[in-house]
């Protein structure tokens, strides 16, 4: 789902806690979204009138008007923009209230960022904002996310889960330079304690299986890490 840089998906974050806002914006930007944030309900509604967004992440507890009210007002304007509500309360009544007021989905606070991303992707897919095709394609490499099958130039390649994860990450973010540390965290999990050398081993296996020869698709960036350069975009 490589997308045009000028056609990034725009997300509006309405949240009053500065730290949560900060990590949401930073994290989402890293995932390739364009993020705007507002710290109050009315300011959020104003921002919606000035720009069109593809998705809203909305906190329930806001200093001026609460999230449910914001949701209702957005729906009253006839907008069907996907809304993801963040709530602290776990009570069912609150979830029902959120969904009744027009939200599409909710997450309780202490959510994991991965889950948030998955919910965002699901919401966007449902509205047709991103391709429903669960396949990634670059440089004659086809990665099927559902069957977890990989082929290059029509020839099937068997990858281990770690290698698959690495390739998926590279193909989702072409040109982006990943440090070994980041690759380790993203593919093997945040609580993996081993050294980063293991990443070099996995990359080497992946290159062999892909038949990746210089100039390589997966390049070593000296003293930093690795990056993925599909051929059609050139170097």
């Amino acid at each position, binding site marked *: 789902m490589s997308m045009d840089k000028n056609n990034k998906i725009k997300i509006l974050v309405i949240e009053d*806690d*500065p*730290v*949560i806002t*900060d*990590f*949401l914006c*930073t*994290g989402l930007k*890293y995932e390739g979204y364009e993020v705007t944030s507002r710290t109050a309900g009315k300011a959020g509604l104003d921002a919606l009138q000035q720009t069109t967004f593809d998705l809203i992440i909305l906190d329930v507890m806001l*200093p*001026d008007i609460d999230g449910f009210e914001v949701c209702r007002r957005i729906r009253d304007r006839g907008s069907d923009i996907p809304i993801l509500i963040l709530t*602290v*309360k776990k009570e069912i009544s609150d979830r029902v209230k959120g969904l009744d007021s027009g939200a599409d989905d909710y997450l309780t*606070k*202490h*959510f*994991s*960022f*991965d889950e948030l991303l998955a919910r965002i992707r699901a919401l966007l897919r449902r509205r047709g904002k991103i391709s429903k095709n669960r396949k990634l394609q670059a440089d004659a490499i086809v990665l099927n996310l559902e069957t977890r099958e990989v082929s290059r130039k029509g020839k099937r390649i068997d990858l281990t889960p770690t290698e698959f994860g690495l390739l998926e990450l590279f193909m989702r973010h072409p040109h982006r*330079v*990943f*440090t070994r*540390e*980041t690759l380790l*965290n*993203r593919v093997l999990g*945040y609580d993996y304690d081993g050294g980063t050398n293991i990443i070099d081993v996995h990359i080497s296996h992946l290159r062999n299986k892909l038949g990746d020869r210089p100039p390589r698709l997966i390049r070593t960036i000296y003293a930093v890490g690795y990056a993925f350069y599909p051929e059609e975009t050139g170097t």
Partner: protein
Amino acid sequence: MRVWDRLSLQARLGLLYAVLLIFSVVLVGCYSYWNIWQLFISNKSSHLRAQAKPIIEHWLIDNDLAKPDNPHLKLTHQNAFILARDLTSRNTVAIVLSRKGDIIANGKRLPEEPEAPIPDKQYFRRALSGENEVTYRSQVNGKPVLVMLIPLRPQPASSQIFGVIQISTLLTDIKEILFRHGAMLVSLVAIILILGIVTGFWLIGVSLKDLQGLLTSCHQISKGNFSQWVPVKNRRDEIGQLATSFNQMLEKLEATFASQQRFVVNAAHELMTPLTGLRGSLEVLLRGAQDDPSAMARLSKGMYKEVNRLIRLCEQLLGLSQLESSSNVHKQPIILSDFFNEFKADAQVLAGGRSLAIQQGPYVKVSADPDLLKQILFNLLSNALRYSPTETPVVIRWKLLPKQVEIQVSDQGQGMDAETLSHIFEPFYQGKATVVSGDKGIGLGLSLTKSMVEAHEGTIRIESEPGKGTTVSFTLPLE
């Protein structure tokens, strides 16, 4: 005593009741038995006397002995025998005794007539001394007899006593009647006892039934089921009162439990927000933002703030729980003006460049914990600073009230509406006001402050008008 203590209340009451019942019924039975016996005896003796009296009178006249001051008063075997014979019948025998106590004549002639008991000297002397009817019980051959001694004198009330007649009659018939009566009495007592004990146990059981209900409810409640109320049934007796006050206690317990639970939920929610910030920031960093120094710096600062907020929250929670025990409040005499002179420097640091006025009031000595007093003032001061524009002043002043002193912290900030004021002391409650300077609070400051003031036996109140400002006043006891 151990066995007694282990018995159920019903068994104990029942036993006590049964013992009491047995004791009183047996007492009544014995008394009535004795009473009837006495009645029979007195009846018998008056019967004897009634029989004897005319016989003796006739005998006196017949033998010319009825004349007053008769110098020839003398008992002979002959005349004495006539008298004894006249007085003797099937159940009764009479003997005539001389003044010396010798038996002059014995009326017993036939074998079916009873034997006369040997005269008792003590009773004989009493009769001789003039007592008209000396009656006593004795035994002849193992059979009970009633003995009556009648002194012989020529005329009633004469002091010339020339002999004594002893009449004795068998009591076997009375004994027989009494035995029958006693048997009836015993069976009656037995019936009364059985009936009484059975109904007693039943009555006690009925009265204790509600107590049993209370006990069942207690068991339920001890398992954590607070909705199980004790049925009261409009009773006004002790059990009804017990049930009522038990229910009141339950209601209070339930409310306390609910508020405790609410507090825990609120505390957990309050912990959740900074934790979400921390977790999200860490995740974003680990996912790759760590490679970007500016993102790293920003997120680290945010995380640092969140950790501080968590620590502050924990400190206040600890503070609240510490105030629950008065042993953590160390009161000492404080001269208020001296205290504020010292406090001013600290307060100025908190206020930053803001205008802060401490208006000296009258000389007073209060009894307070200086650390807690400082914390109270810090809390109120930081609230005042947080919710008022930077160019407006914050004023601290105090005034003397009877037996206490009132300290006020006023600002000219945004104030609060009545709705906010009514909830302002609830833990974790935060009004809609926007923070002018500094961090957003946690919502524990004022409830903590209230607890601290109350730990000093003081009171706290807030007057506020939206748009005009807020004044918080609290009292401290004088030394």
